[in-house]
């Protein structure tokens, strides 16, 4: 259990660093949705399925969609 949670947290940290360092904003948005996906797995493992569902629907799907719409309106690459 603690091993699985550590692996999930490790992936989450990696994705969060990806959000920070990626210059391609579309890639950064996908990485941020990966953070949410890992958070969903973590909530599920820690026995909070209600929160996991909300995180999956809002964090992974809707926030990503809204960011993608915003990127389409502005610019895809930073600097």
């Amino acid at each position, binding site marked *: 259990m603690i091993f699985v949670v550590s692996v999930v947290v490790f992936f989450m940290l990696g994705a969060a660093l990806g959000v920070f360092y990626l210059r391609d904003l579309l890639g950064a948005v996908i990485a941020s949705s990966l953070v949410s996906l890992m958070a969903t797995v973590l909530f599920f493992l820690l026995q909070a*399925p*209600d929160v*996991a*569902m*909300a995180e999956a*629907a*809002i964090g992974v*799907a*809707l926030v990503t*969609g*809204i960011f993608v*719409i*915003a990127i*389409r*309106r502005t610019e895809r690459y930073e600097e």
Partner: protein
Amino acid sequence: MKDLRSPRGIIALVLLAVIAAGLSLTITEIPFGSPDTKVGSYYVENGREETGAANIVTSVVTGYRALDTLGEVTVLFIAAMGLSAVLAIEKKKRKREVEESSLVLSTGCRALFPFILLLGAYLFIHGHLTPGGGFQGGAVIGSAFLLVYLGYPERRISTTGTDVTESLGGLAFVILGLIGFAVGSSYFLSNFLPKGELYSLFSAGILPLIYIAIGLKVGAEFGGIIDRMMEETR
């Protein structure tokens, strides 16, 4: 980074250190995981008998703390209203070429859309029995609308329809709360319907009705938000 040694930089560093020290001191003091509050263990022990909902989270969200949930729904409504007000300021009809989606994507969207809607409806109708509820189901329905816009960029849903559904959902929530007074209860949002048998679909009184209202409202809200943003970015 470059003005880290300037007075402002030093002040900022000191402030950060103070905040870090305060946060770490506070967090080590909080006994996470231990049942420190009486009310939490009370809900876990008595929630099922008192509200009739098998899912204890639901018994708190739409039972004991229904008034807080009404506030939460109001916050979401105000956020959606603010977004549409901001986006309505700039109403120029720019015709931009919209790329057609690929055949795989649009066919997949058409096949998946009804099932995602069904999953959302299942989540909020069964909110008192299984994990899930109005907010989760509504968000799933919102993501179904997002999928439609991915597959068919030209397709529009009617914002009048989403606005009407949203208003009716909010109204149903408040009216359900007010009916309690008419039936003879002394407080807002009282559970006046029979509690029924635990684990059956028609149980827990007004809790599933509240969750259905919330689910429709949240789903319509997200659909409306996505539609307005898509309209704006065309």
